[in-house]
C-alpha cells in the first residue's frame, strides 16, 4: 500500500506548489474548492496508506494536506466595530518608514492617497497593473 502514500504525497505536493505559485503572484483562485478537493483526496489516500503500512510517506501527505485544508477553511477575516469606515476621518498617526524617516499623517494634508494595509512581506508583490507603488 506504499504506492498509495506516494500517490497521496504527489497529489499534495503538486497542488501545494500550484497554490503557492498563485499566491506568490497574488493570483489566488476565486475559490479554493478544487484545491481543497485534491487535499482531501490526498488526506484520504495518506490515511489509507498509513492504516495499511508502516511507511512515513503517507504521514507526510496527511500532514501537508491537513495543514492546507485548515488554512484554507479558516481564512476568513474579521474586524471589530471600531474599524475605520467610509466617511470617517483618518486618525492622526506617526510611523517610521523603511528608510527610518518619521512619517506623520500631517504629511498627507491636502493630498489624495491610497493606503493599503497588508500582512507580511510576501504581500509586497503588488500587481503592476495598478502601479505597484512605483508612482
Amino acid at each position, binding site marked *: 500500500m506504499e504506492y498509495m502514500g506516494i500517490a497521496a504525497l504527489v497529489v499534495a505536493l503538486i497542488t501545494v506548489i500550484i497554490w503557492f505559485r498563485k*499566491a506568490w503572484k*497574488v493570483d*489566488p483562485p476565486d475559490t*479554493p474548492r478544487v484545491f481543497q478537493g485534491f487535499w482531501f483526496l490526498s488526506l484520504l489516500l495518506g490515511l489509507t496508506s498509513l492504516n495499511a503500512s508502516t511507511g512515513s510517506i503517507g504521514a507526510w501527505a496527511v500532514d501537508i494536506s491537513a495543514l492546507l485544508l485548515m*488554512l*484554507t477553511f*479558516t*481564512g*476568513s*477575516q*474579521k*474586524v*471589530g466595530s*471600531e*474599524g*475605520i*469606515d*467610509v*466617511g*470617517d*476621518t*483618518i*486618525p492622526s*498617526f506617526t*510611523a*517610521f*518608514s*523603511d*528608510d*527610518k524617516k518619521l*512619517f506623520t*499623517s500631517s504629511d*498627507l*494634508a*491636502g*493630498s*489624495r*492617497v*491610497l*493606503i*493599503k*494595509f*497588508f*500582512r*507580511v*512581506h510576501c*504581500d*509586497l*508583490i*503588488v*500587481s503592476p*497593473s*495598478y*502601479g*505597484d*507603488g*512605483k*508612482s
Partner: protein
Amino acid sequence: MITVSTDTAAEIRLGRGMHGLQATMLADPKLKLINLFGLKNKNLNNFRLPGRPGLPVLTSLLVNESGIVVWKDQASDYDRRSEPGIIKAALTKCFS
C-alpha cells in the same frame, strides 16, 4: 500611495529592493497604526508570527484631501487582495 504592514523596516527594505517599489512603506510590527485604524484581524486565524501581536485585515482605503475615507475595500479572506481593476475604478469614481 502608502502601505502599512507588520513587516519590520528591514523586511520592507528587502521587499522594496526585490520588487522595485517606490511607495511610502510604513513599518508597523507592533500594530500601533493597525490598531489605530481598527483593522486588526479578530478572527481565530489571526496567526501570531514571532514578535508580532497579530495581523491586519487586508484593507485598501482611498482618502481625500480632507483626510476623509471616501472608499474602502476589505478582503473577506486572508488570501484575497483588492483587485487592481476595482482600485482603478474607485480612483476614477472618487477622484475624477
